[in-house]
């Protein structure tokens, strides 16, 4: 039981004491890859990810084992959103994503 509490505490600290980070790049083949992570180096595997366009979610996924998501490049303006919970959302504008 003690161990459970300890691991919970660690989990909490990794979620709240560290900032969420995302970096995206254009694969040059019509797809975009976004990679999520945390400032303490912990994995973003399983963290929610979405693509928004005009306030609507057009794509949703969870970060892979490698903390990555690859999606089809939307035709007009969009934002990639790494959603690690309240206060831990990272928005990257499509126009800032380059090859």
């Amino acid at each position: 039981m003690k161990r459970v509490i300890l691991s919970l505490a660690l989990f909490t600290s990794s979620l709240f004491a560290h900032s969420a980070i995302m970096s995206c790049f254009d694969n040059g083949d019509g797809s975009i890859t976004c990679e999520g992570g945390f400032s303490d180096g912990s994995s973003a595997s399983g963290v929610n990810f979405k693509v928004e366009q005009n306030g609507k979610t057009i794509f949703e996924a969870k970060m892979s084992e490698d903390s990555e998501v690859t999606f089809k490049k939307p035709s007009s303006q969009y934002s990639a959103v790494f959603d690690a919970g309240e206060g831990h959302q990272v928005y990257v504008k499509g126009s800032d994503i380059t090859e």
Partner: protein
Amino acid sequence: MKKMILKTVAVTALLSSSAYAHFQMVYTPQTALTKGQTIEFKHIFTHPFSDEHTMDMAGVEEFFVINKEEKTDLKDTLKSITFKGSSNSGKAYESSYKARKMGDHLFVMTPTPYYEKNEDAYIQQITKTVVNVAGAPSDWDAELGLKAEIVPLTKPYAIWEHGSFTGIVKSNGTVVPFAEIEVEYLNRDVDMKNNQMGKSKVEAPQDSFVTMTIKANKDGEFTFAIPKAGFWAFCALGVGSVKEYKGKELSQDAVIWVEAKAMK
């Protein structure tokens, strides 16, 4: 008497080595990148503070990068260039790398030993440079078990001006107590386009400020307070396990570059 002579010889050797403080550069202008991008490197063997002589690199034995524990050989990306220092030009290399993935890209270069005529000995500086993409750490503190290695305890790309850098000197994974470490400031802007050094930025009041010599403690650990933003290099002298090359003495050194940013 014999001992005395030996001591004198050793002291002279040390003196001359500090008078010619060589540093292998694996240089890219920005080590903390906000997002993935293609980065350019210059690989120059020089004296970063005084820029008194640019050595002709003898070649490269190994050049690779590690990102998220994955090693990629980059030796084929090296291209020969001539780099112009303020007093002469020397053989150097340049390379280009797509730093796309988030996290740390830990670059390691092992040059072919360089023959230093003044010392009738060879120098080989196994050099580390760490570039980070987007602020998520991954491999910066990796211990690679190199023949000569400085393992950082401070992220080499995340140091504020007036901050400090701490590292541990190792050889094949074993600490080197009381290792002698030379420290130099890159006192020039590197003109990446024209392959030449710019004007010097600061003046040293005396020679001991050009190449600063510090020592590691009994655990091979050292800390250096960084007085100015820019690039700083640390070189642990002769700590490598290989002591001879082509029948002559070899100084196998460990170099690491760090970059401090101004607070503004």
